[in-house]
């Protein structure tokens, strides 16, 4: 076979094969994300995950906050003044020290742009002598969690031109950018300056591969040593491959059916509960996600401690109950089996998008299941912006979306948006629940775990009862690595993939 391969390559390329051996020292990584630009608010996560740039605060593998560029932080008693102390030995890739002035400039720029930081009640950012001070309008316990977000990566002043436009990524992580060929390729090398020591493998090459199936092939053919985000269907096959390791972690992401509670179809709780009861979550997860444990019996997955409440009644399929609930809400089957009320057919459009490859198949399955209780659903796969757009103008009926609850590690930030007054792009639509709003407000103001726990339970119970968004499945992240490497760990919050601790197997 080797002979054949050599012969084949010589024939087709007319050149000897030195390519693969020359690259032996490089860790080849493939993932789904394209690097369309280098603006941190857009693609900062790539540089954060690949450890090119760092944030002040980061998380450990359990999802709890951990020191990043800031070695510790404190908050004043009134909860308005935060102080973050920088590491003394942090150096940017251009050789300059990570000073408070540089970090403040970087954060101020972030604050003025699009990103989570703009949503925090920040009054002022200042700093001197290795300490960053952030002043708030009102107490906001989640601030350190917000500073984990990739848009807040700290970049050296040399990353920007005079007008504040970003020209390059000069971060402080173990790896520095060697070459970037947008949108697909990023070559990294050890910076030699990291405060955490030298990375195990100094050369890393990242390739963006959009198609999940192609990524699986990359892993199988040995063209990549580490591949992120495997499709659920490929996982079993990859697990069986003796040359590969597969690691899976549940991530705080839930696929939900976002319904417009102001529309005549979903304005009654019974209708929303009926939809929920009509869905065969187990069947869907078994077939499409290949893991029945991912059936979302409530909004938050078990991995989110304190947010997954064991005692709430799980959401399960019960077609008869669904039919009864719909009948109670005044819907009666029409001649063709589709429900009707006051001469109006229960016919809705389900918007979804293909940024997440599993969404269209899920929509297809949901469509068939809802049809069984007499609801006619038209699936429309479009651009992800259509859902916020239709949310805004009120014409949204139903949308199947994938919602991340760890945009900042504390889900409160997300809940604040999603179930606050007026709902949000990816949260509730037409659902205005004062009780929920009060609970979330209280949560946001405190960081005392004992005060928060009952509030969290209360919030989950409200959502479980009211179902402004109907959970369908939870998510997991599968990472495939070649047995040539060791030290691979899955970060469920996808903040940092820890490439620097990967080593070649001797």
């Amino acid at each position: 076979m080797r002979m054949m391969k050599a012969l084949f390559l010589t024939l087709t390329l007319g050149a000897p094969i030195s390519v693969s051996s020359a690259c032996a020292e490089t860790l080849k990584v493939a993932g789904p994300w394209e690097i369309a630009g280098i603006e941190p608010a857009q693609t900062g996560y790539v540089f954060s995950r690949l450890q090119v740039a760092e944030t002040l605060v980061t998380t450990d593998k359990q999802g709890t906050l951990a020191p990043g560029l800031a070695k510790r932080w404190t908050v004043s008693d009134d909860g308005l003044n935060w102080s973050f102390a920088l590491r003394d030995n942090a150096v940017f890739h251009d050789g300059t020290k990570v000073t408070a002035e540089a970090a403040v400039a970087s954060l101020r720029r972030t604050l003025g742009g699009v990103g989570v930081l703009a949503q925090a009640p920040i009054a002022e950012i200042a700093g001197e002598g290795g300490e960053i001070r952030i002043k708030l309008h009102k107490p906001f316990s989640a601030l350190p969690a917000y500073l984990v977000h990739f848009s807040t990566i700290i970049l050296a002043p040399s990353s920007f031109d005079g007008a504040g436009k970003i020209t390059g990524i000069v971060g402080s992580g173990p790896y520095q950018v060697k070459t970037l060929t947008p949108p697909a390729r990023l070559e990294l090398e050890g910076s030699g300056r990291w405060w955490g020591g030298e990375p195990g493998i100094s050369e890393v090459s990242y390739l963006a591969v959009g198609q999940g199936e192609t990524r699986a092939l990359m892993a199988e053919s040995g063209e990549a040593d580490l591949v992120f985000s495997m499709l659920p269907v490929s996982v079993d096959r990859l697990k069986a491959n003796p040359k590969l390791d597969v690691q899976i972690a549940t991530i705080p992401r839930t696929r939900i059916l976002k319904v417009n509670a102001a529309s005549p179809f979903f304005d009654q709780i019974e209708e929303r509960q009926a939809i929920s009861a009509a869905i065969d979550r187990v069947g869907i997860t078994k077939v499409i996600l290949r893991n029945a444990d991912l059936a979302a019996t409530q909004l938050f997955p078990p991995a989110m401690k304190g947010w997954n409440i064991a005692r709430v009644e799980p959401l399960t399929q019960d077609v008869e109950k669904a039919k009864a609930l719909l009948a109670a809400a005044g819907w009666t089957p029409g001649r063709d089996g589709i429900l009707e009320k006051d001469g109006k057919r229960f016919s809705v459009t389900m918007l979804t998008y293909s940024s997440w490859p599993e969404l269209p198949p899920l929509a297809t399955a949901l469509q068939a299941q809802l049809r069984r209780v007499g609801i006619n659903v038209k699936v429309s796969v479009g651009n992800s912006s259509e859902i916020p757009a239709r949310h805004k103008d009120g014409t949204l009926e139903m949308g199947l979306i994938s919602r991340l609850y760890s945009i900042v590690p504390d889900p409160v930030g997300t809940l604040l948006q999603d179930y606050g007054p007026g709902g949000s792009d990816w949260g509730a639509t037409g659902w205005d629940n004062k009780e929920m709003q009060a609970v979330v407000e209280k949560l946001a103001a405190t960081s005392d775990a004992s005060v928060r726990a009952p509030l969290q339970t209360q919030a989950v119970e409200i959502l479980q009862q009211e179902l402004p968004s109907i959970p369908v499945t939870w998510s997991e992240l599968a990472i495939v690595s070649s047995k040539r490497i060791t030290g691979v760990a899955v970060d469920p919050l996808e903040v940092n993939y820890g490439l620097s601790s990967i080593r070649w197997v001797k």
Partner: protein
Amino acid sequence: MSTIDNMTSTRARTGVGTARLAGAGLLILLGGFALLGPLVISSDPSAQDLGASLAPIGGDYLLGADHYGRSLLARLAHGARLSFGMAFLTMLAAAVPGILLGLAAAWKGGWAERMLEFVATVVLALPGLMLVLLLLAFSPGDYGPLFLGLSLTLWVEFYRLTKATTRTVLAQPHIEAARMLGFGSRYILVHYVLPVIGPMIATLSAFAMATAIIAVSTLSAISVGLQPPTPELGSMIVELLPYFAEAPVHVLLPAVLIFLLVLGLQLLAQGDRA
């Protein structure tokens, strides 16, 4: 010497004849499947039975079931009908204006022709796929823009062929002779031009249909074509692709169906362009 010419040409003709015959036979079979299949096969192509996910061939489901447990036989039949139908409509929508404009350009010449030529050049310089993508953005997943976009790119070929051939025919002395003998344009069109362009148009139509089938399935394959749960052959391949390790034949079935459809059309069109 003319006998020799006749001998060689008849031999060549029979060679093409068998290919044509094979193509026609294939198309009749597939056409029958596409037309009658959906009527005979009672199961709904979108009815799911998650319990029967990837059911094997020959069991409860004659050709197995896809990952949602939908009958592949029913989906293939509906898919074939869709592909055929779309291709035929697209071809018609491209051929009719293409031929009429081609005739007009060859007949009138002058300004009208230059205008048409310009439009054709611009359309040709626009990547056809881009046009389709742009139009699809109007209403994703609808048949209308898909078929409009494809026709918009395909008409040019009909236009060019008709124009060039008609122009050659019209330049021949026998047309001048017919005009001098008092025959009108209508007679010349029906008796002299159409018999010449007819077979060429037929060939081109078959090719255009083949192109349309491939284009529709390709667009579905890069997820911008028709939307679920439409049983479209291209999207069936892509949907089933991740399962190829478990059910390779299931993935192969729609691919083979596309292949046979296009092969049939190609064989039927076997002319000098083969």
